[in-house]
């Protein structure tokens, strides 16, 4: 009897180690990106398949993502080999990421590499993929475009005229904006609306130009579908035709093009008095100091930068390569539509790139909240613009001082924390 138990235990141990064995050898890629099931499956099957020995690609929400990483850091040892996340996700982990200067990333542009240093002298993360935000319109809306307006060079005033004309012609507001809890509305205020009017995200937060910007947006809101406060991914409402003109992240409008490629057009964000502000989005890959096998982690980071991997990633996630590479002709409709629109936006004579927040550490969420609160108070609660900007500016100033974050583009560089005038 005793020997039988012993035998069983051994068998159990052997089978356990067989199950656990290969999983341990596979490096764990712990990511906040490509979360939808189809995307993560594509990451595993098409992107990671070429890495010798395979990769255990695991996406997760930002909260649990950070919690597990912090737990491994506190424990001093861990299983996570490589971290994938947006600039903002990674910036909160700065001190615990190892220097990646040894990676050959010459193909990545220097401005983007600079982002990856997180303001330190070390290469904290390597840019992995990039995206931005675009406007999309149903082709049916094109006939209401104001006379003389060029869809590739719209201004905010023309956009309002267009939205008004569309609303009047169809009997209901047809502009869409991702203002739901999971929507990326704060990025629109930080990287598009405010810089276009003030050439600043932080410093001129409560300037007169900012008041004008919010007045403009309040006007646009009249022609915005009031259900927008429930919208997260504009592709859904574009396909159901609940909205005809929309703003969102390229990865969140892709399905509209992939489902009905002939019905939609993508075009650049509108311009304000200070230029055509837009926000490039950068996702990066980093290695935590607790990675179980540094050499393997470095090899995986290098693998992610290969042109074939970058193109496979584009197919899987709708995020564009960070290296200059020729795209094959058989790309999905969303990529074919977004490519020229992005080129028109970034190459516009009045282009004004507004970068993602830098140096905020774990205060990124609170920074976003300042803009979300401003929106909710001015637009949804109908409070006075000047009063709201004054009170939110105090919150923003305290936050910048607490985080000790210097200004980033398009705000003028600062010594010490970025000032709020």
């Amino acid at each position: 009897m005793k020997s039988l138990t012993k035998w069983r235990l051994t068998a159990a141990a052997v089978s356990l180690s067989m199950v656990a064995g290969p999983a341990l050898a596979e490096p764990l890629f712990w990511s906040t990106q490509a979360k939808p099931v189809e995307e993560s499956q594509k990451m595993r099957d098409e992107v990671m398949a070429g890495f010798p020995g395979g990769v255990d690609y695991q996406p997760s929400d930002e909260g649990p993502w950070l919690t597990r990483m912090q737990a491994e850091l506190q424990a001093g040892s861990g299983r996570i080999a490589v971290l994938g996340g947006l600039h903002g996700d990674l910036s909160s982990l700065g001190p615990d990421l190892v220097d990646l200067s040894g990676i050959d990333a010459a193909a990545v542009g220097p401005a983007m590499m600079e982002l990856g240093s997180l303001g330190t002298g070390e290469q904290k993360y390597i840019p992995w993929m990039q995206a931005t935000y675009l406007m999309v319109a149903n082709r049916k809306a094109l006939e209401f475009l104001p006379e003389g307006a060029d869809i590739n060079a719209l201004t905010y005033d023309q956009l309002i005229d267009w939205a008004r004309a569309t609303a009047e012609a169809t009997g209901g507001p047809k502009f869409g904006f991702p203002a739901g809890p999971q929507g990326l509305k704060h990025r629109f205020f930080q990287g598009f609306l405010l810089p276009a009017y003030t050439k600043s995200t932080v410093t001129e937060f409560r300037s007169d130009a900012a008041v004008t910007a919010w007045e403009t947006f309040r006007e646009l809101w009249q022609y915005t579908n009031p259900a927008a406060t429930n919208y997260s991914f504009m592709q859904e409402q574009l396909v159901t035709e609940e909205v005809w003109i929309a703003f969102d992240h390229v990865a969140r409008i892709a399905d509209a093009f992939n489902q009905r490629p002939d019905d939609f057009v993508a075009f650049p964000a509108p311009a304000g008095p200070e230029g055509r502000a837009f926000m490039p989005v950068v996702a990066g890959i980093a290695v935590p100091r607790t990675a179980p096998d540094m050499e393997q982690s470095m090899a995986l980071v290098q693998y992610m930068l290969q042109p074939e991997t970058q193109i496979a990633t584009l197919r899987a996630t709708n995020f564009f390569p960070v290296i200059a590479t020729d795209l094959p002709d058989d790309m999905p409709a969303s990529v074919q539509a977004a490519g020229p629109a992005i080129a028109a936006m970034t190459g516009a004579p009045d282009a004004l790139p507004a970068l993602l927040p830098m140096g905020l550490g774990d205060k990124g969420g609170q920074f976003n909240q300042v803009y979300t609160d401003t929106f909710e108070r001015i637009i949804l609660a109908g409070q006075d613009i000047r009063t709201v900007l004054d009170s939110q500016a105090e919150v923003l100033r305290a936050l910048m001082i607490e985080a000790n974050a210097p200004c980033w583009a398009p705000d003028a560089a600062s010594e010490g924390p970025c000032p709020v005038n």
Partner: protein
Amino acid sequence: MPRLLPYLLLLPATAFLCLFFLYPFVQVAHDSVMRNGVYTLENFSRMAGHWKFSTAFWNTMILAAVVVPIQLAMALTMASIVTKLQRGRSTILYIFAIPLGISDLAAGLIWLSVFEQSGFLNSLLVGLGIVDRPILLLGYQNTWIIFIAIVLAEVWRATAIMMVILVAGMGLIPKEYGEAADVFGASRWQKFRRVTLPMLKPSLQTALILRVILAFEVFAVVVALGGTQLPVLMSETYHWQFAMQERGVAAAFAMVILGVSVAFTILILRLLHVPKGARV
């Protein structure tokens, strides 16, 4: 040994509570008064200074003030009916208790499928020709509809927990009291008010405390139906912890919920106090 046995038997549960309740609780309490390594009330002042705090606080209070009385009235009615039944009692009890088996998030999603723009209610209204096109019910412009939807979902979901407690309590009331009231010619209403209700006080106490505390913790139903459009204390706690990554302020919110819960528990205990000699 026999004298020690009860304590030994209680040991696992006590250890479990200490480890998974008392320890995190002390930690949260500690977090709420700690900021950058110094003891301070700044977390509380940041919480109270946020423009949504008073809205979230009053939303929670008003929600509890509306939901709990409705549930109390319904639970009393349902419990009285169930107690009177001669046949099929347990079947009815099971049917009444079905929503208890559903998680609160699922309950929120069920009601979301009723109220959303492409939901059942809109389909019904369009089908009957009352409206031309689906109307936006859960929008920021009419938070009162969101409020009503939450009240409905909460009443639907959590009335049964009160009912179950009250049914058990009614079963404990000796029949003689009711018979005596009958002898004196008491009407049904008089019997309910003068006999059942006073005898039910201990169960009412338990049911109310449980429900009121749960009402202050309302979260998933609110988030499912209202997103961030109707802030309550619990959703703000979650938001500060995970989106804003401000553990201290989130802990301060948790302490406010705790404070309110304790205050109302004491109030209910006082109001429904039964002297020892008067208990059944």
